């Protein structure tokens, strides 16, 4: 077994385990912490695929941003309601059937297709190539993305502003 296989197996175990904990945990706060672990595991998968810049973006934006905002939302809603919000799941059987069915469908489709087993070697600095791509060929979508983020964050602040 190569080092990559071992790393992939460990990361897969962490990722799937943390993801299961996110959807099954009774305490919503714990679920968010498990989500942080799952998102960090995804950053590890990106590192394994030699996309180190994306791993950094993933850690900064997801594990840093989304988790913080989610914790804020939980604290605000639980604090205002003054009691623990019940975290019982419902439709467990239906949800399990649907998701296992979708998983089986995807895996059976993948099994029929001939897929690459080895990836081409990385040539040059990926971060540099990514930056050049974003600022030349994809400069218009990039600027639109900046506009979208400003609009979304302004809207989020507007929605969540304190009532006066």
């Amino acid at each position, binding site marked *: 077994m190569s080092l990559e296989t071992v790393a992939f197996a460990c990361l897969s175990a962490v990722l799937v385990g943390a993801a299961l904990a996110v959807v099954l945990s009774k305490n919503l706060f714990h679920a968010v912490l498990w989500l942080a672990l799952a998102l960090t595991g995804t950053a590890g998968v990106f590192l394994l695929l030699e996309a180190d810049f994306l791993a950094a973006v993933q850690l900064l934006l997801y594990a840093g941003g989304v988790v913080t905002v989610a914790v804020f939302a939980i604290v605000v809603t639980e604090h205002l309601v003054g009691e623990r919000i019940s975290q019982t799941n419902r439709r467990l059987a239906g949800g399990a059937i649907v998701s296992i069915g979708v998983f089986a469908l995807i895996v059976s489709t993948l099994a029929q297709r001939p897929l*690459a087993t080895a990836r081409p070697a990385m040539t040059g600095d990926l971060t540099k190539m990514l930056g050049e791509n974003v600022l030349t060929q994809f400069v218009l979508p990039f600027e639109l993305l900046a506009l979208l983020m400003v609009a979304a964050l302004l809207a989020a602040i507007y929605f969540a502003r304190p009532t006066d």
Partner: protein
Amino acid sequence: MGLQAYLVLAAAVFCIGLFGVISRRNAIGILLGIELMLNAVNINLVAFARFSGDLTGLVFTVFTICITVSEAALGLAIVILLFRVRRTVTADHLDLLKG
């Protein structure tokens, strides 16, 4: 590791997220499930980009990461607003648009 292993891993995470979206009662819990699903999509994009040797997929991943983060911030802000108006975050109780 072949491309197939990464795709199966992403499919597993996607389906776990789908299960969360279906079974959670709390709106924040549903949003966490959606985050997991979007995350699985990012794994797929990066895996396909690396195995095809085309960088465009990685650029696309940067875009999807930013868009999903905007979506999360906006979604949670809407949950907080709904909570303020209706005093509940249980998705079953948010039936204002029911005819």
